[in-house]
């Protein structure tokens, strides 16, 4: 089973993208940083007790599924859209959503467009090898307008094309648009158009067939989300886990009550370690892609359900 493999290896093999600002990129000290990376670290902390015991494998849009299917990686955390065919036909198991996204457009203010529907005849830069190009084709077909697609292999390249004016608009997931815009010299010269033309629930995934491993991956993600809901942060977790609190849900989560860890085949403190690795979901978000970072994403759909967002962890019970 994957869990045993990982334990025996003493290392979690996690597939990430080759570089997407805020989500995964190596820093000058060769340490991978980012939102997706943080999930991998939490999982490693839960399973192996050390958030640094992760081997990151870089995957491209084309190679990621093969890497997972062949067992080259244990889990893929590479802003991958959860779709029917990927789940069913490609035989993967999405273990949840860590970012609710949607495809949008960014255009220079000077172009004077206010809506994507005004883009008849425009040149559109897209990143290939994703669902993006299918969504785009569908959108323009549905609105009966024409466009000229310019397929680009990487985000960095696409950004450069867009800035130079080689395309009128650039389309990718809204998170990516925001991240990209953040790095422009004059971010305020560009607008993100209001249309979100697709649903892009991004989440980590594992192979079909190993449900125990799927459970661990799923509930690690849920633990991060639940922790935020219950107010468990990396600052107060030591205190909360030292003794049972009067919130039984927190107690079960942090292993001071019940046997949830053992049911997963882990020890009682698994979730505590996962949360301590990089903080709860909210902390991870703020640190990597939140409004204080250059990426500057607001929580939006990714707020807790209690605050009008879609994040909703099933109960720990």
């Amino acid at each position, binding site marked *: 089973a994957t869990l045993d493999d990982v334990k025996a290896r003493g290392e979690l093999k996690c597939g990430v993208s080759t570089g997407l600002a805020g989500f995964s990129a190596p820093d000058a000290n060769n340490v991978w940083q980012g939102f997706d990376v943080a999930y991998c670290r939490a999982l490693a902390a839960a399973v192996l007790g050390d958030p640094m015991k992760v081997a990151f494998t870089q995957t491209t*849009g*084309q190679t990621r*599924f*093969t890497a997972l*299917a062949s067992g080259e990686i244990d889990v893929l955390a590479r802003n991958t859209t959860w779709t029917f*065919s990927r789940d069913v*036909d*490609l*035989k993967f198991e999405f273990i949840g959503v860590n970012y609710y996204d949607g495809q949008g457009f960014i255009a220079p203010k*000077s*172009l004077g467009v206010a809506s994507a529907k005004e*883009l*008849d*005849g*425009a*040149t559109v830069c897209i990143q*290939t*090898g994703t669902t993006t*190009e*299918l969504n*785009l*084709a*569908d959108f*323009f*077909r549905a609105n*009966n*307008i*024409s*466009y*000229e*697609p*310019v*397929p*680009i*292999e990487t985000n960095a*390249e696409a950004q*450069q*094309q867009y800035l*130079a*004016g*080689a*395309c*009128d608009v650039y389309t990718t997931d809204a998170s990516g648009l925001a991240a990209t815009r953040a790095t422009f010299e004059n971010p305020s010269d560009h607008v993100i158009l209001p249309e979100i033309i697709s649903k892009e629930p991004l989440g980590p995934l594992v192979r079909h067939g190993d449900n125990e491993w799927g459970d661990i991956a799923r509930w690690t993600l849920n633990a991060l989300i639940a922790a935020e809901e219950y107010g468990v942060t990396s600052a107060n977790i030591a205190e909360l886990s030292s003794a049972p609190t009067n919130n039984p849900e927190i107690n079960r989560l942090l292993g001071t009550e019940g046997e949830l860890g053992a049911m997963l085949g882990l020890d009682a403190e698994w979730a505590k370690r996962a949360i301590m690795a990089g903080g709860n979901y909210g902390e991870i978000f703020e640190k990597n892609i939140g409004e204080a970072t250059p990426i500057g994403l607001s929580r939006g759909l990714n707020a807790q359900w209690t605050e009008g967002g879609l994040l909703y962890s099933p109960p720990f019970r």
Partner: protein
Amino acid sequence: MATISDPPERGFRLSQLIFDTRYRSMTIQVVAMVLIGLLLSWLISNTIHNLEALGKDFNFGFLSQPAGYDINQQLIDYNNQMTHGRAALVGILNTLLVAVLGCALATVLGVIAGVLRLSNNWVVSRLTAVYVEGFRNVPLLLWIVLIFALMTESMPAPRDFRGEDGSSMLLGESVAITNRGVYIPNVVFSRSLGGNDVAAPEPEAPAAAAATTNMAGTYGASRIATGGAGVQTGQSGTSAAAGGEAGDGAAEGGEVIPTSSGWDWLLILAVLIAGGVGAKLLGTRAAHIQESTGKRPMTLPLQIAAVLVPLIVVLVGLGASLDKPHLGGFNFDGGVHLRNSLIALWLALSLYTGAFIAEIVRGGILAISKGQTEAAYALGLRPGTTMNLVILPQALRVIIPPLISQFLNLTKNSSLAIAVGYMDVRSTLGGITINQTGRELEGMLLLGLFYLVLSLLISGVMNLYNSSVKLKER
């Protein structure tokens, strides 16, 4: 040879399988055969098992499913409702297009650089050396990316052409060089052979137009993709706009709109070929005259006329005019749009391969010993004649075989189109299609087969050439 004196039949001994030259090679081959067979069947059975484990099968049905994605550059009609097979075909044609263009330009560049490198002008020969070494010693991928970036960074965007002080178009407002590519005029015909019925907004029209386009590859070439409406997303009527603007024009009224169709281009091609044959005949006639009288009549003006005059007649007959690109909504409309991805890939491939060809050309010329030139001079031949009759025929024998293998490399290297988003066969069939359908095995197999067949064809041509020009030796 009836009396074969084999050693008196001692019967067959097993050791003969190894020690008897007659059986030994047989034994080895059988063993090799068995080993290869085992290896293959092992691979195949693994594949079958793995496919089974993944719940996949091996079939090419996906080729007839709708592709769902758009391709910006199409030599034949395509929209996202067409099949993956069709998309693959579009990709194949794009690969061939850039390969052919690349080979042509690379040859020109290579020959020029090769000759210049031999020049006794120090600056020129140094400069070409820098070009050759620079391109040979840096990965092609880097050059493709660099040239692509250079083009997008240094050329004006279409919107810069707006307003008074914006950039201006070249050649009488007919050519626009932008960072999205180059827009050049398209030739359209007011008395087109096949195009007029396009103006009729009947539902059959698209089918007819599509049929004509399919039949004529030349037409496609004129349409590296028409400007503006690169991708028609309407399900029905709009795809009939074969000539770029024709669809819009049709809406304006019943008058005949200049357009172009495959038949026009076929006719022009035919006239060109005929002209070429005529020119060739003139050349042969000149040779005959020279043989009998010793004097060679001037033929070049005649030959040029033989090609040009019929061409002009036909163009006038068809009512040819230029459809110049002009600023539309976001882009230039009309004309032919040579996309940046194509140009960058084309330039990079040509410059890179050209550097290798330059070395081949230089080597070929150097391989012809100085004695040949001297002998020709001593006979009183002029330098020009010497080049044509003595040096080139010999140098070509040395040059052409490696030249063709460079063409082969260029064709294979065109798969690096991925770096600039040029939609070649690897990006369509081997890229998006595989990614959308999960048919890696089938897709890669087809892709490999395509390249293999292509390269076998090219090397077949090379072998033919080699055997036809081989020098006779003792």
